[in-house]
């Protein structure tokens, strides 16, 4: 790993650990390998959002050319959000692409992602299905996102209606995640979700 990248990441790692956000449990970062090329980040779902109470784990890969190029970040925790792929966890955020600036750090990236959870950009979507729901059925989106937070990120709000619909499908031999994806995509219309799963 290039010297400059290693030096930066070491310093940023310390910066995150010492930051007040860590004290408030809002963000966290851990080493995955000793070489500082791969890290694991964690952000708390912001209050007053469907992600509240959840903890979202991120994969952070630091390229050789860091900080001249942005780190490669994706969500490992499954999440229902217009700018994050519900399939791969890939993120659509300008500062992780062409708006990256060399003075940005792991800490600012994590805080930006947290801000993204508070303020989605449905007009610049990463997940078209989620973005459509966000715009057309905002309440349905909110409930779905909160359900995903409970299912994958340890969020506190369970939704008995959604849970029972999923159970109906799992009883038919469908994996619970596949069932959740299908139901979420069809605004929890059990009939259409079933149709799609068995077509």
């Amino acid at each position, binding site marked *: 790993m290039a010297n*400059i990248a290693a*030096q930066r990441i070491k310093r940023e790692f310390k910066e995150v650990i010492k930051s007040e956000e860590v004290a408030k449990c809002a963000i966290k970062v851990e080493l995955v390998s000793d070489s500082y090329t791969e890290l694991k980040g964690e952000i708390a779902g912001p209050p007053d959002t469907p992600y509240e109470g959840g903890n979202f784990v991120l994969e952070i890969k630091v390229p050789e050319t860091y900080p*001249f190029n942005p780190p490669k970040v994706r969500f490992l925790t499954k999440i229902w959000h217009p700018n994050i792929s519900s399939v791969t966890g890939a993120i659509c955020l300008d500062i992780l692409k062409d708006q990256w600036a*060399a003075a*940005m750090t792991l800490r600012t990236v994590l805080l930006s992602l947290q801000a993204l959870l508070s303020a989605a950009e449905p007009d610049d979507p990463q997940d078209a299905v989620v973005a459509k729901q966000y715009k057309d059925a905002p309440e349905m989106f909110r409930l779905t996102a909160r359900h995903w937070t409970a299912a994958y990120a340890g969020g506190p709000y369970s939704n008995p209606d959604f849970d029972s619909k999923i159970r109906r499908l799992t009883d038919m031999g469908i994996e619970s995640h596949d069932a959740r994806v299908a139901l979420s995509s069809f605004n929890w219309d059990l009939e259409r979700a079933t149709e799609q799963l068995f077509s």
Partner: protein
Amino acid sequence: MGYDLSRFQGLVDEELICPICSGVLEIPVQAPKCEHAFCRACIMEWLSRQATCPVDRIAISSNELQPVPRILKNLLAKLVISCEYAASGCTAIVKLEVLDSHVLDCEHNPRRPVLCDQGCGLVTPKDDLKDHNCVRELRSLIQTQQQQLTQLEEEVVDQSVSINEIRRELNYLKEFVRAMRSSHPAMRAIAEQFEKDEVKRWASTLPKAKVSRWGAMISTPDEVLQAMIKRSLSESGCPLHIMEDLMANCHERHWPTGLASLQTRQRQRREYDSYVCRRIPGKQAVLALACDNTHMSEEMMSEPGLVMIFALGIE
């Protein structure tokens, strides 16, 4: 890239840290409007990818970068840093401003330049000294110089070809001017000045010569000798319009009265050393040009000048 923060004694102010490499600023420069400071190498690398300030994204380009204020330089200069060869055993801790000169002399620096003690006179990095072979090094030095020499020689050939072309064109032009002069009286004055200047310019390219044996003068050179001298004159760039007249003046029958015969020549002998002479390249012959010898009396000089050929004694 900046200096690793861990090499510094005490705390380093955040303002002295490069936002790109997170090291202490090395050769700092700043952005023009927002005045954010970076290591020169870091910001150049960044600007090669994106022409914005990495801190606030204001548009900047590399030629707009400015030196940082003196106060920032002074703060940096005063920082105390350990030698970069601390791991090899150097215990020196110096001010940042003298780090470079310390590193150059540091005995732990494996690349410290040292003089070869075998006598070849070359300076090599210390860690290369054990593999240093004077003969090989000098041989490669000779080789590179040889290449340079060949290259220069080729250039000289090219140059002389183009000079010859230019000279030929110049001659056409002169012919043209001469033709113009005869057809237009107003051109005459300009053309005469032009020709005078040309003679002076040519004369100044010929080295001054000293005649040590005036008695060795050949006052009646034969055709062959005259042809040889003429070729030399032509090669030296003698202006065409005086060439024939000059060559006529290489024989005593065209010389002025003061030189015209053996008797008069013997009489005027002590005046000879007053001539300003120029060497005709490669020949035992000199030119005494009228424009160089305005101090000589009329009976010792004629236009455009005299050619004097000798058996020997030209320096």
